[in-house]
């Protein structure tokens, strides 16, 4: 009991922060590569498309997920990760270097880089998943975010194992054909890891940020396992077409319900973070509508890239930015308050004007990315805008951290 609520069990600020900060250069690199990719975006199989996808997933998303996981599981679920500082040191460097190597290996067709990157990302993600699953098993707290988080972590395990197998096969290793499935890797990654994790976070933060009603009890209880079953059915090929349609209906249902809850929010004011959420949810609904339609298209090659843009740029990039713009300022306030330093309120950490500028650039990047598979000049514009948006975010975060360190210094000076 004691450890559940003892604030000292929450990780030091540097633990989640290093992951959240590392995420951003990965998105900037994805933007630059997108700007230079030209008509390579006509297919998801080009080396540019593969590298951009993995900069956004194994780089940006995975790092951001680690940061949020390390902060939210102890504070909101009561599951304290063991020795968080050591764990961060063991996970963060290989995950970062591995993410770079993996993307470079895919882009350069380099077998050593693919092997090293795949192994580093997989082993670091597996270590984190093992630590988090152990903590979640030990906590006596029994809330629905905990269940969803466990399913998402199992999804991460399968995503990286399937991904590692594909990376090794691409690097020239001979592996059994049964585990070499891009379709399974993609479905498990987008839905079992990504969407379930988004649900776990949503159950916690949507009511928290906007004071919305809670998600209905039965939805919180049944949605994550039902989604998992549908994904397994679709990914394993047991009931592929039906499973895919069910999965997309569930994804649209989650997004629609969240939009509905946000409409019923008690807080009157909306901010940039809220708008990022709305873009993410609208993109998820569009992606859920587009995905089943791919099966009926004569040539879905370019539309598959559009789906990727909706999922990665519209969905996950948007929602991660929404979270970063709430979590980092709150943590700055919390840790200053805890240290007895002069407080900085959330709007004093990252100015709303900076977040709104990023929001506008991000929305433009998304709009340009949609026709990019058919019209290469749009890819250049989308890439430059993606790079610019995350550069604005990096500058905003750097400014916030400078203010944090100055206030910490004031407290130490006073002491």
């Amino acid at each position, binding site marked *: *009991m*004691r450890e*559940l*609520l*003892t*604030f000292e069990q929450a990780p030091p600020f540097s633990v989640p922060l290093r992951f959240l900060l590392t995420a951003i250069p990965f998105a900037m690199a994805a933007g630059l590569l997108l700007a230079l990719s030209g008509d390579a975006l006509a297919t998801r199989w080009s080396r540019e498309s593969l590298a951009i996808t993995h900069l956004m997933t194994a780089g940006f998303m995975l790092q951001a997920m680690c940061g949020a996981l390390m902060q939210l599981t102890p*504070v*909101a679920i*009561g599951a304290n990760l063991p020795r968080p500082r050591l764990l961060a040191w063991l996970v963060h460097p290989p995950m970062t270097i591995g993410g770079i190597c993996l993307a470079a290996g895919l882009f350069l067709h380099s077998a050593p880089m693919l092997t090293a990157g795949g192994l580093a990302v997989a082993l670091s993600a597996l270590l984190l998943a093992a630590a988090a699953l152990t903590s979640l098993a030990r906590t*006596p*707290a029994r*809330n629905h975010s905990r269940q969803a988080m466990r399913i998402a972590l199992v999804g991460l395990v399968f995503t990286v194992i399937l991904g590692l197998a594909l990376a090794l096969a691409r690097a020239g290793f001979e592996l059994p054909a049964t585990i070499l499935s891009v379709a399974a890797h993609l479905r498990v990654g987008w839905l079992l890891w990504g969407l379930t994790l988004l649900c776990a976070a949503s159950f*916690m933060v949507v*009511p*928290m*940020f906007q*004071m919305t009603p809670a998600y209905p009890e039965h939805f919180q209880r049944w949605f994550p396992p039902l989604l998992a079953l549908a994904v397994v059915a679709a990914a394993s090929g047991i009931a592929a077409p039906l499973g895919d349609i069910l999965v997309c209906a569930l994804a649209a249902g989650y997004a629609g319900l969240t939009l509905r809850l946000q409409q019923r929010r*008690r*807080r*009157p*004011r909306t*901010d940039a973070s809220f708008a990022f959420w709305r873009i993410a949810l609208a993109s998820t609904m569009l992606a859920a509508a587009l995905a089943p339609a791919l099966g009926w298209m004569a040539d879905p090659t370019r539309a598959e890239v559009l789906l990727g843009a909706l999922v990665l740029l519209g969905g996950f990039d948007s929602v991660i930015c929404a979270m970063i713009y*709430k979590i980092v*300022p*709150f943590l700055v*306030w*919390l840790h200053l*308050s805890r240290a007895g330093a002069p*407080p900085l*309120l*959330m*709007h*004093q950490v990252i100015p709303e004007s900076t977040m709104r500028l990023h929001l506008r650039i991000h929305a433009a990047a998304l709009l340009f990315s949609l026709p990019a598979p058919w019209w290469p000049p749009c890819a250049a514009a989308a890439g430059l805008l993606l790079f610019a948006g995350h550069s604005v975010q990096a500058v905003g975060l750097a400014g916030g951290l400078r203010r944090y360190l100055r206030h910490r210094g004031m407290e130490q000076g006073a002491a």
Partner: protein
Amino acid sequence: MNTIKPIMETHHEHCDHLFADAEHAASARDWNACRVQLTRFAEAMEVHFRAEEDLLFPAFERDTNAIGGPTEVMRTEHEQIRELIASLDAAVAAASGDDFFGASDTLAILMEQHNRKEEGILYPMCDDRISDREGLAERLKQRVGGRA
């Protein structure tokens, strides 16, 4: 049968509504109305905190021997919430929307994670462990009023 969790949960909900009312007034830049709503919210929060600090936490500490643990964390968070409410007061006095929403953004997250810990872990433990649960629930109900 009286239990502690629903009584205190309902009062959390009541406080959330009062907080939102103050934010609506601030959003309309009606600072007089905001002052009135903020006073109501601050009073309700104080009633809630006093009920916990005077009745609930001592009973929990007595029956579990958990002195200085979770309840101490909750008391610290109460102080942080009181400081943020004072910042809201100052923002209303200065008629500053930026300062008001800067403090209210921080407070909304702090309150929600504080309530989540209480409702998800502490109150169920209190219902489980406190020997005179029904009597205590009745006294808490009297403190937090007809909202429970």
